[in-house]
Every structure is written in C-alpha cells, then in structure tokens.
C-alpha cells in the first residue's frame, strides 16, 4: 500500500468562507452535515434529559417525582424527540451527508439547494415541536394511537403532529438527494460493485425514506385535521377505524426502524473492514442484504398489531414475514464476523464501537424474534421487554455506530485527532452502562411490567430491584456519553492536527486533504479498484483451503 499524505491546501471547506451567513446559506454538503450535527446533538440532549427524568421516577414504585400526566409527557417527548429528531436524521443527515459524495467521488450531492432546504425544514419542524413541548407538551406516546390522540388527549397533539409532518419532508428530501446522487454522480470507474458498503446501506435507507415517509406524512396530517375538525377516519365515534390508523402508522414506522439501523450497519461495515485491513467477507451478500432489508422491511408492519384486534390470520402472515426479515440481518452479522478472520485488527476507538455494535445488535435483534413469534409476543407486547428490545438496537446498535463513525471520520471532518485513550475508556463505560441499563428490562418485561407505567405495584419487590439497577446503569451510560462530548469539543482546538489519511485506508474519502476542500477533490478521481483493497487482488485467498498465510 502506498503511503502518501496529501498536503493540506490552505483553504478547505471550513475556512473557505467565514461568518454566520456563509454557514446558513451554504450549499456545501459538508457544511450542511455540520449544521445537521448541531441539530441532532441538541435534540439528543433534550431527549436524554427526558430519559434521565424517566429513570429517576421509576426508582420507586410510587409516583413521587412527577405527576402521572407529567410522566406521560416525559416518555412521549423522549420517544418523539429521539426517534424523529435524533435517530432518523442522525447518521444519514450527518455522516451520510458528509460522506456520500466523497465516497463516490462527486463534488456535491445532486441537489445542493434541496439539501440545504431539508435542513431548514428539519429545524422548522423541530422548532414547532419544541414550541409544543414548551407550551404544554404531548402525552400520547410516540405512536399517537387514536382515538386517544384525536379526541381524548388535551395536550399539544396538533402542533406536534404538524412538527413531525414538516420534519418528514426533510427525510424525504435527503433520501431523494441520495438516490439521485448515487445513480448519476459516481466518479469514472465507480461501478456499483465498487461502492463502499456505507453507500449501499444509504441507498437502501433512502428507498425507505422515499417510500415510507409520505405515508406517515399523510397519516399525521389526517390526524391533525381530525383533531381540528372532530370528525374522523380514525375515530370510532365518527364511524372511523382506529386500527386503520395503526396500519398506516406502522406501514411507515416499522420500515423507519430500518431507516435507523441500516445506516448504522453501513458504518459498521466500514469500521470492521477498515480496522481489520480486510476486504469485507461476502461483499455482495452484505450489499444486497441491505436492499433485502429495505424491501422485506415493508412487509412486516403488522407485527405491531398482534394484540390490537388484527385478524389472527393476518397476524400469522406478518409473523412469518417478520422471521423472514431477520435473515438478511443474520447474513450481515455473520459476514462481519468472518471479515475479522485473519485480519489485522486494531483496537482503536471506532473499532471498539463497531464490535460493541455487533454484540448489542445481535441481542436486540434476537429479542425481536421473541416479539415476532405470536405466542410470546402476546405476553411481551407493551411490556418492558419491548423497551429493552428497541433500546438494544437503537442505543446499543445505532447510537454506538454513530459514535463509532463520528470518531472514525472525526479527523476528516474536523482536521483534528481526538484523544485515543479517552476514546477507548468512554467506549468501555458506555458499553457497561448500557448493558446495566437495559438488560434488567428484559426480565422486567417477562415478569409483566407494562411499559408507559408511571407507577407499579409495591408488592412486586423484584420489579423495584430491577428498576434500580436500570437507573444505576443509565447514570453510568450518561457519564460515558458526556466524556466524548467533552473531549471531542476539546479536540476541535487542542487536538493533534490530522493527516489526510490518518488510518492509512484506501477509501476515496481519505484520498483528499483533511478537512477536504469545498469541492472535495482537487480533480475528479478515477476509480480502478474494489472497495477495501488493502492488498493487490492477486494475493486473494479462497476460504475453505486454509493455506498458510504469508507473513506480511
């Protein structure tokens, strides 16, 4: 592997222009990615405050910290902020926005103005939602089930609905931009099978954004109008059908969980391959499993309705399909593991997060099987088992992958290195804290503790024990997340200056200076090799033969 550093040109995307206006009116995908990063960090902070309040309240069975109505707002707002304003835009709109053009050798996304627009749309939706939260909050649960949300709740459902409706469009616009960019703007020689897996997974994510988000948009819009006009498609008192709402909601919201996890899988594919200096095992299988997840992901939404009076037969179809959708995820997990085989594995912070992702995602995904199975879902549905299941995937999986990706590309984004020691330490704290927070919740759920419960029976002593463990874990997790916040901010000023290719990797994004110039590359790159090509292809080993490895 040739080693050369690209001398940093004097101007890069960060210092090409100065002033607030140059940021707010920028059309550079890299700057927009940073705008988004500010946005999602802010919302993650808000969502985390709610999480801490929830955990504190649940320390005791009685409702002593807050009133019931306040508690209901806490978890609703926690869910809404974390899902719609943090996790869905997290990886695609920040890392994706920054890297999709760079990885395919383009100067920008296809529609830079629409890209900027999407950020404004996101912020507008966010501000409206924040306004709703400040004005009085919402208490419907993030799922907005009717008729509670249309007729009975007296909180700010309408305003929040409008906020989510608007934010939906930012997601649509991002997806649209990615699809068009990946189709039409690849550099010469960048064929589909030369695309990094990060791109494949973002392509699959975009498909879901395009096909699913409009449905949630119209659903939330109808909901808002029903609240306004007191007549409804979803309101049984008006002859409407609450189960139809659930169908439409989950038609989007189940695929949306793959919007959250597919980009994370893309990041992890990059981490695993690059930090073990290996080409990914079964590239095409990993690539197409992303598409398979995007397609099959649309066929399983009814598994959220197993006990919602959906027909037993439809339940069986959905259960069957839910098991089928687990297979592409399994393929990914096994291929990542196989990639490590005979690699040169480094223990840098991003890799620690990547490895943590595989373990925690596997637990989260496998517990999804309990829920996809009809008999057990009946017992576990709407209990803490569900809460544990999705936090394992969304926090243990997606959030860890985001942190891993952030550390990995931090030198490229900021031009500075983060402190490696602190990085490894905090990754460990996060891992321990996370498991302590959410593994007790599996037990809680199996024992029957329902979710969205402000109080729980005093006679269930073991429940309180588990809740105390969980809260203790959350505090550790909180510390683990605060540390990177501090040292990443610190590194912006005091970090070691990063080389153009600090990890010595073949990916296109590393073949330009750190931070990159405004148009990413000084001249359009021409791609001649496979992704993750660390060694010449002639040296390729065929597994199954197990010959001795030549010393490097």
């Amino acid at each position, binding site marked *: 592997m040739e080693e050369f550093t690209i001398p940093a040109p004097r101007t890069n995307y960060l210092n090409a222009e100065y002033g607030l206006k140059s940021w707010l009116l920028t059309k550079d995908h890299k700057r927009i990615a940073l705008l988004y990063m500010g946005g999602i960090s802010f919302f993650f902070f808000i969502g985390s405050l709610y999480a801490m309040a929830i955990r504190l309240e649940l320390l005791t069975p009685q409702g002593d910290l807050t009133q019931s109505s306040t508690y209901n707002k806490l978890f609703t707002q926690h869910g809404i902020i974390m899902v719609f304003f943090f996790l869905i835009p997290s990886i695609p709109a920040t890392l994706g926005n920054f890297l999709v053009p760079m990885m395919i050798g383009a100067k920008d996304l296809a529609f830079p103005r629409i890209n900027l627009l999407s950020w404004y749309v996101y912020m507008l939706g966010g501000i409206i939602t924040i306004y709703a939260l400040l004005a009085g909050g919402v208490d419907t649960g993030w799922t907005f089930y009717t008729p*509670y949300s249309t007729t009975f709740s007296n909180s700010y459902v309408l305003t929040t609905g409008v906020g989510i409706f608007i934010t939906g469009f930012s997601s649509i616009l991002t997806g649209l931009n990615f699809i068009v960019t990946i189709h039409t703007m690849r550099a010469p020689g960048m064929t589909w099978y030369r695309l990094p897996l990060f791109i494949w997974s973002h392509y699959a994510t975009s498909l879901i954004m395009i096909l699913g988000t409009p449905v949630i948009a119209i659903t939330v819009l109808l909901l808002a109008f029903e609240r306004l006009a007191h007549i409804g498609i979803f309101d049984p*008192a008006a002859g409407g059908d609450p189960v139809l709402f659930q169908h439409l909601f989950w038609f989007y919201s189940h695929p949306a969980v793959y919007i959250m996890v597919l980009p994370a899988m893309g990041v992890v594919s990059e981490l695993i391959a690059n930090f073990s200096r290996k080409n990914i095992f079964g590239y*095409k299988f990993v690539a197409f499993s992303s598409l398979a997840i995007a397609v099959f992901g649309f066929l399983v939404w009814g598994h959220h309705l197993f006990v919602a009076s959906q027909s037993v037969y439809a339940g069986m179809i959905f259960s069957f399909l839910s098991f089928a959708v687990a297979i592409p995820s399994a393929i990914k*997990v096994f291929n990542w593991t196989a990639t490590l*085989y*005979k690699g040169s594995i480094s223990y840098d912070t991003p890799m620690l997060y990547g490895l943590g992702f595989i373990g925690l995602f596997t637990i989260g995904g496998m*517990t999804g099987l309990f829920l996809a199975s009809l008999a057990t879902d009946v017992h576990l549905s709407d209990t803490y088992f569900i809460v544990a299941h999705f936090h394992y995937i969304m926090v243990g999986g997606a959030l860890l992958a985001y942190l891993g990706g952030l550390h990995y590309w931090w030198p490229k984004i900021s031009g500075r290195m983060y402190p490696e020691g602190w990085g490894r330490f905090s990754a460990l704290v996060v891992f321990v804290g996370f498991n302590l927070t959410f593994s007790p919740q599996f037990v809680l759920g199996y024992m029957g503790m329902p979710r969205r419960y402000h109080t729980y029976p005093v006679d269930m002593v073991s429940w309180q024990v588990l809740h105390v463990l969980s809260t203790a874990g959350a505090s550790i997790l909180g510390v683990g997340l605060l540390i990177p916040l501090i040292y990443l901010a610190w590194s912006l000023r005091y970090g070691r200056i990063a080389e153009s290719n600090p990890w010595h990797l073949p990916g296109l994004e590393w073949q330009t200076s750190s931070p990159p110039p405004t148009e990413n590359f000084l001249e359009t790159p021409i791609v001649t090799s496979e992704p993750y090509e660390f060694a010449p292809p002639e040296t390729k080993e065929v597994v199954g033969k197990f010959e001795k490895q030549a010393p490097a």
Partner: protein
Amino acid sequence: MQSWFPFIPESASTISGDVDAVYFYVSGVTVFFVTLISLVIIFFVIRYRRRNAFEIPRPIEGSHKLETLWSVIPLVIAMSIFVWGAKVYFAQYRPPQNALEVYVVGKQWMWKFQHPTGQREINELHVPVGRKVKLIMTTEDVIHDVFIPAFRIKMDVVPGKYTSEWFEATKPGRYHFFCAEYCGMNHSGMRGYIEVMEPKDFDNWLSGNANQMSPAAAGQTMFESLGCASCHGANAEGGRGPALLGVFGSNVVLSNGPAVKADEGYLRESIINPQAKIVTGFGPIMPSFQGQLTEEQLLGLVAYIKSLSTPRPETPTAKPPATGTPQSANPVRQQ
C-alpha cells in the same frame, strides 16, 4: 405474588406453560447465537490483533457455501420458532366452547366486569379455577388492554367493537392484571386483581352477590323498552324485522354482500349500524341506535339475543317464517 425464583412470573393458566416453553426455546436460541458470535469475535480479535503497524493481511474471497449455510440455518430455526409460536397462539385465540362468559367494559381508568349471572365487579374479577373463562371486552372511550401476566394473555380493548380473550386458571390465588395499552393520565393505575377461587368458593361468592339482574335479563327489558320488539316481535319471533331466535352463531345471508357469521361483533353492528349488513328478504328500515346506548346496555342486548340461541330442547333451531313479511324467504340459518 412471587414464584420460586423471584425473576420468573407466576404461571397459572393452562396455556402459560406452553408460552413459557416457546419463550425458553427462543431464549436458548438467543443465548446460543449471542454466545457463539461473541466468543468467535473475542477469539478473532485476540488471535488476529494487529501486531505491527505495517502488516497487511491477505484478502479473502467470500464463500457461497458459507453464505448459504448461515442463511439456511437461521432460516430453519426461525421457521421452527414461527410454527411453534403460531400453534400456541392459535390455540390461545380460538374461542373455547362452553366457557363462562364475562363481559368487560374498560373506561378511563377503571375496569367493569359483569358475570353472566349478573354480579358486577370493578377492578377485580372472581373466577373459578379449572373452568374456561372468556372475556368479551369493549370500551367506552379509548383503547385499553387486559393483560394478565400470570396467564400469559393480553388483548386490546378497542372502541366500537368487541374483542375477546380466554383463559383457564390452574391455581387458586390472587393475580395482578394490568391495562397494557396506553390510555391517558392514569394508565398505570388502571390495574387490579384476578381472584381465582376453588369452584365451591366461587359458587359461594356468586350466591353471596346474587342480587343483580343478569345482562341477558336486562337486555330483554331493553328489547321491549327501546321498541325492538315492535319489529322483531315480543319474543323476538320476527315481524317486520327478522326473527332473532337462533341468529347468534348462524350464517346470515345478506342482500348486500357475502354471508357472514353472526358473532357478538355482528350483533353489535346490526344494532349500531344496521345498514352495513342487510339480511336478505328485508328492507333497510331498521333505525340506527348509534349514540343512544351505552356499551353496557349494548352488551345487555347482545347477551339477550345470544341467550335466544342457547340450544334449548324446546326451542326449534329453525324458526317459523315471520308473519306479515311479504318476502317469506327467510335467511338460511346454518348452525
């Protein structure tokens, strides 16, 4: 109420063992795969750690054989879980014959139960051990859900229709039940106890509280007071409207759609929205009673009409042709 190990829920119904079996099977699969993957990763990470900054491992070509192997094995395991889970679920949701039917009405934030013999209870339900009990449930406002962890059952209670679940308790005792669908402010307070009693204690309890009208009797009174009798006949033998004897459980032939099975939901709809399904041979003249009846009253009417189908030796299942109906073509009832 704790079992031998404080982190396992009480198991007290005929199906809870089956559900646990599936649960432990999936747990086994999960533990196996999580351990396998973790161990392999840990092994690789240690065995193939980077030993010097310049080493470049040889690239490895993927393997179709391995890919097939690790797609098919999970698929087979997944399907085994599916089949088993679906079987247990189906057994769990197939309505039982000859169950004790208890009517349940949820309301923000309390539960009302009524026994077929008339006893009413709030947030507490007494049932005998060893007998199938079917809950026929609805709500006056938002969606709720009856969740009884010890019995491993749960079902949403949806406004505008009836849902049901059933259980057969195997151990006397006092078990928690919860509202497991978020329903507003006091959602977490919408819980209570199922009191499972020995049959003779249950009978004692019943007779100690036997001063209330049974739902069917209440329904019969309403049938007259609401004017249903004016069309359906004083004894529901028919008139301008079809006879209601033997309707429940039969196949009703409709003039505006395929035949339907007359379950509780159908009876409810026939009263609330009679135009949705018109019985052949009759005009769409029945007025809608939407908004005029509480859910409990509706349940009473339904209970009454159901009682007309209880196989009684002296009641012929095939009812006499309705008098005064120009179209004597009466709906075919297939029991």
